[in-house]
């Protein structure tokens, strides 16, 4: 279903609407969304609460399906895929970074990062190589045997990033990755994401409320009441702080 040699846009969204039904009420969340994201993009998705940012992110990540329109990621029409197919697809193509890190508390940093690899056919040695490489990228090699409760918020988020990149996904989706961090840790995380984008050519979509965080991206999208109201490509302010 997924073309591994696909060279078109990473994300292509056409005429997407999304509605939620609550009893007899229909709540429109997104309407008339058209969006293209190319390989190597680093896009920030901004907007007030309830504007549909996370819903759009969920559609792109294959966690939800549009009511109308099509969402294609790496040439795969996610609206047509079954739930099982989407599970496999996510394990191969998407890396998730959450606001509250969502690490598994009973697993060490190493094991948390290894978790997505347990779904692959890699053997123990290959998994070890991947995990150690990811740990090195996020600079936490010395903390790999620590449990999440033994790490600071910033370190936990770096483990979460390592978990997101360990399978070498096509797209990284981040929902408020600095929302629970202090300014210094937040800045470190944003710098790490910038490195992932620039040094490792990772395509990233980041939902954020924070203009300083958005300033680290290459492109900023504004959503209001489910409608795309702004799309700004901008030079990266690598020195900006949160």
């Amino acid at each position, binding site marked *: 279903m997924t073309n591994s040699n696909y060279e078109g846009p990473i994300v292509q969204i056409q005429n997407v609407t999304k509605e939620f039904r609550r009893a007899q009420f229909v709540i429109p969340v997104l309407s008339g969304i058209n969006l293209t994201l190319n390989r190597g993009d680093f896009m920030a998705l901004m907007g007030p609460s309830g504007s549909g940012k*996370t819903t759009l992110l*969920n559609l792109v*990540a294959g*966690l*939800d399906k549009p009511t109308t329109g099509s969402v294609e990621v790496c040439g795969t029409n996610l609206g047509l895929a079954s*739930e*099982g197919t989407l*599970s*496999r697809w*996510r*394990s*191969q193509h998407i890396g*998730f970074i*959450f*606001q*509250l890190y*969502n690490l*598994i*508390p*009973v*697993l060490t940093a190493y*094991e948390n990062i*290894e*978790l*997505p690899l*347990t*779904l692959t056919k890699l053997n123990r040695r290959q998994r070890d190589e991947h995990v150690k490489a990811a740990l090195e990228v996020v600079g936490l090699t010395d903390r790999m045997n620590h449990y999440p409760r033994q790490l600071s918020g910033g370190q936990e988020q770096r483990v979460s990033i390592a*978990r997101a990149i360990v399978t070498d996904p096509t797209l990284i989706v981040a*929902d*408020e990755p600095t929302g629970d961090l202090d300014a210094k840790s937040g800045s470190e995380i944003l710098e790490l994401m910038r490195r992932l984008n620039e040094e490792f050519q990772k395509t990233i979509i980041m939902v954020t409320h924070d203009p300083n965080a958005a300033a680290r991206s290459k492109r900023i999208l504004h959503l209001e009441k489910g409608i795309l109201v702004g799309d700004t490509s901008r030079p990266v302010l690598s020195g900006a702080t949160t």
Partner: protein
Amino acid sequence: MKTLQYIWRNVMRNKLRSSLTVLSVGFSLALMTILHGYTAMQDQWGIEASKHHRIVVMSTMGFSGDVPIANVDRVRGMEGVIAAVPYAWYGGVYKDQQMAFAQFATDPKAVFDVWPEYKIEADQLKAFQDDRQACVADHRLAERMKWKIGERIPLQGTFYTFNLDLRLVGTFEAPQNTDSLWFNWFYLDEGLLGKSSEMAGNAGTIFAKTNEGLEEATVCKAIDERFSSSENPTRTQTESAFAQMFADMVGNIQLFILVIGLAVVFSLTLVAATTMAMSMRERTTEVAVLKAIGFSKLRVLWMVLGESCWIALLGGLLGIGIGSLCLEGLHSISSQLFPFSIVDMAGPWMFVLLAVAAGIGLVSGIVPAIRAAQLSVIDGLRRVI
């Protein structure tokens, strides 16, 4: 890291809760182990008896009726009977212990022909046959009572009016613990005659060994026909049917106990299910994350069921351990109700109880597992994002 390792970490996540669940499952299965052991032991007598081609002749009036001693010789003379002995339950008190062990009055000359699978030294058998006051005992009973050869064993009659003064001359080996002592029927009978007791001359029951080539039922029928028109008609049955008759006497109680045991297991399964449900509810976000990063429904289902089965199997092992210790303890206290050691009982039924434990794990985990598998990733993540 393997998935099993992750499941084990989840089991150990909340040690207090897991321990309490393991204990609750363990104690319910310990109860089941004891009940199962008890019923299995009762059944075992019948199974064992059916191998040895023995029949039991008793009065049609039951244990309260007479079986004249003269009938023993008549039974011996019948076609298909190899050996026959009187076998009267004495039921005496030993050193103020009522029902301390089983005591039977029998014929020393033929009793080991009726029970050829019981082994005794030739000199001890001779001593048993030569001395009216001699007795022999199951070697496990002798060990339990710390009797030595030559030991005097006084028994005070309860419904027999004659007290016995026995001397232990030997011990026999039986395939399973009989917890029995045998003494000479004629010693008892002489004593009863001396007291002009009406109970004299009564064989109690007759145990006979039959020829393997003949149908036991045919021999039983022939014996009953032989005595049908006498003053003391008989009811003859195979030893296994006789054992079943005893089991049937307490059959309803067994069923009642078993139903209570199952009810306890069922209610503790619900407790385990509640625990699993609580545990999974606390981990809703975690499950959503697993599903987001690509864990399939089936994998999540398997992981949750694996966790509940781990806990239940730990409980099962604990239950079997505690139950076995209890059975062993009960065996040492009352070998009559619990005639076999746990070593004799260890076998397939333990696997049955482990299967029951696995069943508890599956039943208690199935609802939380299905709910986890069907959890919407978005709903699960919404709790924290």
